[in-house]
């Protein structure tokens, strides 16, 4: 392994600009003559718009234009779309309510977009926005997903009776029911997977810029997938044809899913820039981010696990109500369906699984993919069930899991997935050792002696990522293919530019992708540049989400590098007067087999462009290749996380005392970066378990719309983590990578809650397990113990 090659913890090349204040985020982009957009948002969760009077506002200082939904519709610009078709049990297509970028006739959540004011300064736009008079007829809100489909509830979309987008199912109901009928033990749980607000630290932003000379719109936007944004804005929303629409996602300050989607504000800025022939800039303030970024999770679930007399899992049965919010966001429909139920088998060999999912509309912000997207919800279900079942049947939670692990691969689950490779017991053993599981009893006693309650909780998670074979996701309803593209441009002096359709917004691609190239071509890592995030530079790509940049994005680079090597060997053959069949390439040198005749990579690159040593008609000059990579399967990262908490029963405060994660991500490119991804994921999962939760009141007002009300994990809320890995290389991509971006957020919530319930002797505490929640449960537990 070289110091900068695959497997080395290379310090990040992108860091220099970030630590010196030279990053370039969308809000740092300023175009000459730009105007500023302010979005007037609905103060009501549900209301008819009777009239919008902009006359006074138009007279306000600095105002350039004010637009409403009617203006956009008049320009034949379409509404926002949901790109994944789900069919209900009865075969009917999902019922997607219309989603205009600016509301038409009705608003459906607090923060919904009513009008846009464009002025010379942002302050002027905002001031003028306050002078727009909107007549609303307020309608009752529907907030609770568990009740949304009931007959007496207000209807969010006329197109969706009973506020139901779809009633979907997966698995063999008859086989599952039969297994439950003959079960020796059934464990049952009612679970709420709390609604989260993503909160990337960089708020969403957009700058629309129109060049009337070329009739081209450029949109600078905080996107995880600029090409998908261009595709949707062009092909579906109809803003401009693709060759007249450039989308640039420069440095992006975190995404976690929330910047996958095509939102109203970005669409309006791009459209309005052309409309007024002047650049239009918008940057969300934090409350706008809380109100209008797509939220995550929000499931209400009843789940059951059947065991035989030996403790063998025989079936899982799940019914979930998924809150979609007010509109179906870009990929929302896939999250509680194909990203959720196929993971309900966990790491276990379970013969029968049946899941039903009712997706409902409420008058709340749209809900879509958030770090893990469906897989955290599935893991929460199966790992809470597993822990409780072990306790109910008097089994050690670690050994109960081990007994049920899948041990032979490939393993076909009853819910679509074919697990390719893994070593679940290997991860468990390593985690048990690192967590000093043997010492838990003594530590519990020590805590008890201090009047504290200590608990330990497990989470043996699996996820499907690297999404995915295009044909496979197409058969499940995806509107797009999920391959990735790469182009390798070798310059005449031997430096290399990699153009990738993946997008880095914290994932470290500029380093890890360069490591791959440095390793493969034997050139210094400083001679490699990674180019991404601009549709004018990179032809096409599917972007970054679902932990896919390594498994899919880097695989595309490998495929293009294969072509580079083949071509370079031909050039080298001409230079060395040998057949390209006799050329070997190693450590940056082309050598004629069995001789000491060699030429280095940079010299071959130069010769490829000079083209003096070969016939340009027989061998094309230049050294540039591109590739598209479409995977053959999902990848299946898995691991075991063990959380140990200490609870003060007097205050309900939960201290995460130890957190151990052992993950199998296949081959690692940069362990430092992988560990960093795991740390961040764990923090978000602990946040979900202990601190975070979106709260709407009965009127549909978001009560958690600032950092004073929504509890983000801070440095003093969290411990340091013990993170390690095992390695079973993934067989379905050339690098053996599985993906590591979401694992921490997927694994950790059940580990934390299982630890708390262990400490309290309770079957459930709700998330977030705030001091109030835990104090109440602790008092009950103490009373129960006293009674015994």
């Amino acid at each position: 392994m070289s110091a900068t090659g695959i497997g080395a913890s290379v310090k990040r090349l992108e860091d220099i600009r970030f630590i010196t204040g030279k990053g370039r985020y969308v809000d740092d982009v300023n175009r000459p003559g730009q105007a500023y957009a302010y979005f007037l948002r609905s103060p009501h969760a549900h209301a008819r718009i009777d009239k919008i009077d902009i006359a006074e506002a138009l007279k306000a200082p600095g105002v350039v234009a004010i637009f409403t939904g009617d203006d956009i519709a008049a320009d034949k610009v379409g509404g926002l779309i949901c790109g994944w078709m789900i069919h209900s049990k009865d075969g009917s297509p999902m019922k997607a309510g219309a989603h205009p970028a600016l509301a038409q006739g009705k608003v459906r959540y607090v923060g919904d977009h009513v009008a846009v004011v464009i002025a010379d300064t942002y302050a002027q736009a905002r001031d003028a926005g306050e002078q727009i008079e909107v007549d609303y007829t307020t309608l009752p809100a529907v907030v609770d997903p568990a009740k949304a489909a009931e007959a007496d509830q207000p209807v969010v979309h006329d197109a969706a009776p009973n506020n139901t987008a779809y009633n979907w199912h997966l698995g063999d109901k008859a086989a599952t029911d039969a297994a439950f009928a003959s079960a020796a033990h059934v464990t049952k749980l009612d679970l709420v997977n709390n609604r989260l607000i993503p909160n990337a630290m960089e708020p969403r932003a957009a700058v629309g810029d129109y060049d009337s000379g070329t009739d081209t719109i450029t949109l600078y936007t905080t996107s995880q997938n600029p090409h998908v944004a261009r595709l949707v804005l062009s092909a579906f929303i109809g803003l401009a044809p693709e060759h007249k629409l450039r989308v640039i996602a420069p440095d992006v300050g975190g995404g976690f899913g929330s910047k996958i989607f095509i939102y109203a504000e970005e669409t309006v800025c791009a459209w309005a820039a052309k409309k007024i022939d002047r650049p239009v800039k918008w940057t969300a303030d934090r409350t706008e981010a809380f109100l209008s970024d797509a939220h995550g999770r929000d499931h209400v679930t009843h789940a059951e696990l059947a065991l035989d007399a030996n403790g063998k899992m025989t079936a899982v049965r799940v019914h979930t109500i998924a809150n979609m919010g007010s509109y179906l966001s870009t990929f929302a429909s896939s999250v509680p369906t194909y990203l959720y139920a196929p993971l309900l088998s966990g790491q276990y060999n379970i013969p029968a699984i049946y899941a039903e999912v009712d997706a409902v509309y409420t008058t709340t912000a749209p809900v879509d993919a958030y770090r893990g997207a469906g897989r955290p919800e599935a893991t929460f279900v199966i790992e809470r069930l597993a822990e409780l079942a072990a306790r109910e049947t008097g089994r050690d939670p670690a050994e109960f899991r081990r007994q049920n692990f899948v041990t032979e691969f490939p393993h076909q689950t009853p819910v679509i997935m074919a697990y390719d490779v893994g070593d679940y017991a290997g991860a468990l053993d390593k985690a048990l050792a690192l967590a000093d599981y043997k010492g838990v009893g003594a530590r519990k006693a020590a805590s008890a002696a201090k009047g504290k309650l200590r608990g330990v909780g497990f989470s043996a998670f699996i996820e499907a990522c690297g999404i995915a074979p295009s044909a496979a996701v197409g058969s499940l309803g995806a509107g797009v293919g999920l391959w990735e593209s790469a182009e390798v441009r070798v310059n005449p002096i031997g430096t290399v530019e990699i153009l990738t359709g993946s997008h880095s917004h914290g994932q470290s691609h500029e380093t890890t992708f360069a490591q791959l190239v440095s390793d493969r071509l034997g050139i210094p890592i400083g001679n490699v540049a990674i180019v991404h995030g601009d549709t004018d530079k990179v032809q096409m790509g599917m972007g970054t989400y679902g932990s896919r940049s390594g498994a899919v994005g880097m695989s595309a680079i490998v495929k293009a590098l294969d072509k580079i090597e083949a071509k370079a060997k031909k050039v080298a053959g001409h230079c060395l007067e040998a057949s390209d069949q006799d050329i070997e390439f190693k450590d940056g040198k082309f050598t004629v087999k069995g001789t000491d005749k060699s030429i280095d990579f940079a010299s071959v690159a130069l010769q490829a462009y000079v083209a003096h040593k070969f016939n340009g008609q027989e061998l094309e000059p230049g050294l540039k290749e591109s590739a598209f990579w479409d995977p053959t399967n999902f990848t299946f990262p898995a691991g075991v996380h063990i959380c140990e908490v200490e609870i003060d029963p007097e205050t309900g405060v939960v201290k995460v005392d130890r957190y151990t994660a052992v993950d199998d991500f296949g081959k690692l490119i940069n362990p430092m970066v992988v560990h960093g991804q795991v740390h961040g994921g764990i923090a978000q999962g602990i946040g979900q378990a202990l601190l975070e939760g979106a709260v709407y009141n009965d009127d549909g007002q978001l009560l958690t719309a600032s950092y004073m009300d929504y509890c983000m994990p801070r440095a003093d809320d969290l411990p340091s983590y013990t993170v390690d890995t095992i390695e079973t290389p993934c067989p379905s991509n050339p690098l053996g990578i599985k993906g590591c971006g979401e694992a921490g957020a997927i694994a950790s919530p059940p580990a934390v809650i299982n630890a708390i319930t262990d400490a309290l002797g309770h079957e459930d505490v709700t998330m977030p397990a705030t001091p109030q929640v835990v104090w109440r449960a602790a008092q009950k537990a103490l009373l129960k113990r006293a009674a015994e």
Partner: protein
Amino acid sequence: MVHVSMTVNGRHVSAEIDPRTLLVQFLRDNLRLTGTHVGCDTSQCGACTVHVDGAAIKSCTTLAVTCNGSSVTTIEGLAQGGKLHPMQQAFQDNHGLQCGFCTPGMIMASVDLVNREGFSPDERTIRHGLEGNICRCTGYHNIVKSVAQGAREMGAAASPRAAE
């Protein structure tokens, strides 16, 4: 409009500004020092942290006019003579950043923390000292390590003999 003048990263600057202009707007919009970020507008997240007369403040809730006559240091002014500040270097060395958005504020707050707490803050002190700066990417694990290293290196730079 009101007149404001101050020293920013060692350079004297002055301008006529709207009295409601926040310091962060003055830095970003007037001076185009875009390294200082706005993450929340309510002084909760700390992405906008800069130093005013040597102490960390949150520039998103500070009026520029209140800094009239002050000396302001932003992330762009931290490196000296082409050499990274030890805290900047520590964040790179320990992978203390991912998306980079909170990083300028996190580094400015960390330097201030060391200035207040000394060159060998323990983990508890670091975590408590950074509770006014939110990071969504790193889970803080590597930020804590970064600050510990940065503090040591700042100590070594301040007193080479003591560091030996």
